[in-house]
């Protein structure tokens, strides 16, 4: 029993030496070129206890990283957690994903396929009566939802001036320190943008420079046009169907979402 296993381990060590050199040269391409068979081979050289420990560490890392709602880079996971286990990166991440789903009801979503960044999304339906989650992020989410509503209702683009005009009506001045949000300008144009809720884009050929807002990829994953339309409808006491064109657009949810995450 021990005999064949040892031989297999020896074999995989040989291949891992070669791959180790690769990894030093280009970590990213190394991970990309991991084939399932290679991973299986590499898996054998770590004990299964070690591997599940790493999976647990990755899950914890993702949960801690998600506290700030900033997207998590694959490179960071590899560098900070996996380290010498990077040869089985894909397997560990797969197991971490399963664990997150089964234990926490979270979904690990890749929002940027090119740069390999991930976010956590709740895969469970929201129960109205559970309000365990009121924290300083709650108020910010309210502000964000209003901006997302404005963008969607205005045709998926809102000029910066329009957004500030709206927020001014809600007693928010971009230049002032808000008791709840602090530097609102920074929150909206920096924090929400870094969290990938919003995109803040320079409008070409404007002098002085103007910006416009669009939905960021996280917004498409955490909510949907239909959900936002429902929010607006509830606030304005209207039937979502009364906004004909928005309702029609929100119904084409899937293609719209995939299109949005594409750019």
């Amino acid at each position, binding site marked *: 029993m021990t005999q064949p296993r040892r031989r297999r381990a020896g074999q995989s060590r040989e291949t891992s030496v070669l791959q180790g050199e690769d990894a030093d040269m280009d970590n990213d391409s190394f991970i990309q070129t991991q084939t399932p068979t290679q991973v299986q081979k590499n898996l054998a050289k770590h004990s299964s206890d070690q591997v599940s420990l790493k999976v647990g560490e990755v899950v914890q890392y993702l949960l801690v990283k998600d506290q700030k709602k900033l997207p998590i880079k694959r490179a960071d996971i590899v560098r900070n957690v996996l380290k010498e286990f990077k040869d089985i990166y894909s397997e560990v991440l797969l197991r971490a994903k399963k664990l997150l789903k089964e234990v926490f009801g979270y979904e690990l979503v890749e929002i940027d396929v090119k740069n390999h960044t991930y976010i956590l999304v*709740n895969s469970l339906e929201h129960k109205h009566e559970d309000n365990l989650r009121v924290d300083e992020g709650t108020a910010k989410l309210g*502000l964000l939802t209003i901006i997302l509503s404005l963008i969607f209702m205005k045709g998926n683009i809102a000029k910066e001036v329009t957004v500030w005009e709206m927020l001014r009506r809600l007693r928010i001045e971009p230049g002032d320190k808000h008791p709840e949000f602090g530097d609102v300008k920074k929150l909206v144009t920096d924090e929400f943008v870094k969290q990938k809720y919003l995109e803040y884009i320079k409008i070409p050929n404007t002098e002085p420079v103007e910006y416009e807002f669009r939905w960021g990829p996280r917004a498409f994953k955490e909510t949907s046009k239909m959900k936002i339309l429902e929010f607006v409808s509830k606030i304005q006491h209207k039937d979502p169907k009364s906004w004909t064109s928005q309702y029609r657009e929100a119904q084409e949810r899937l293609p719209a979402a995939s299109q949005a995450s594409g750019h």
Partner: protein
Amino acid sequence: MAHRRSVSKSTVVEGEQQQQEDDDPVEGDMAEMDGDDGTRRQIRHQYRELMQNIQNNREDMLSSRSNKLTETLEEANKLFAGVSRAREAALDAQFLVLASNLGKEKANQLHADMTVFDPTSFAEDLLSFMGINRLENAGSDSEDEGYATGFLPGDAWKKVGMEADTYFRRAPTFHYMLGSFKTDPPVVRQKIERQRKNKEEEKRAMPAQLKKMNESHQEATEKEVERILGFLQTYQNQDPDSPISFFDFVIDPQSFSRTVENIFHVSFIIRDGFARIKLDDDKLPVIEPVATDSHEQVDKDNQPRYQGVISLSHEDWKEIVRTFEITEPLIPPP
């Protein structure tokens, strides 16, 4: 839209004509071309004006209540009737690009205009949802035009957030029971503190050092002057009758620079009236200290001041050392 299409179609037709003309150079009658030149310039000018106009009045053009964009397009269409050459046609195309960009933007706005969504009423409803107390400031005039007045409760934004939360599939974040977890590594903070400390130390050390240098420099001069005066008085007391030769006193046969320094320091003694320089019978300078009691009687301010410049080159110094046969400095180096 139809209007614009007709414009671009005519561009194509004219373009073809243009090509035919270019293909057949014989047709290019010189006189006719000269005659065209003025009108062509005129056309180009008008096109540029139109474009300028579009760019300067963007908002006006975009407004759904104005027909400006259509009017401008029609104007350009009229202009195009006079266009016969590629240069003008290119300007027409350029104009068309601008106009269609504006058209696109206008169409985008229309899309939003068509729906009943009104940000102002949305904002009003949001304020109501937040639980605004409109009675609070009911009496005050609405100074900020159209902006609702009233008092927003402290939990207004939390209320919106809690409502918003139900529309999101946001992963709840966990928090440690013993305070929040700082994701910033503490190592970095230590580094910053250490750097700051170092900076403070440097700041503290620098002026202290400088002060010391200044003090010691000043003191050194003063001390040296006093020391030399001491020597002068000692020599005088040893032999009160014969005056001390100035050269004997200041020249250091071993060092030119010490000699110069000595002269420098002696000049302070002279200036402060502790000693005098005069010429003896051989017309050689001698130096003698002024008695302290007579010094007190002298009114410093009323004393006439004499200034003398002594030039002493390295050669002079050597010669003096040789001539006066100075072998030992009267002022030993400190």
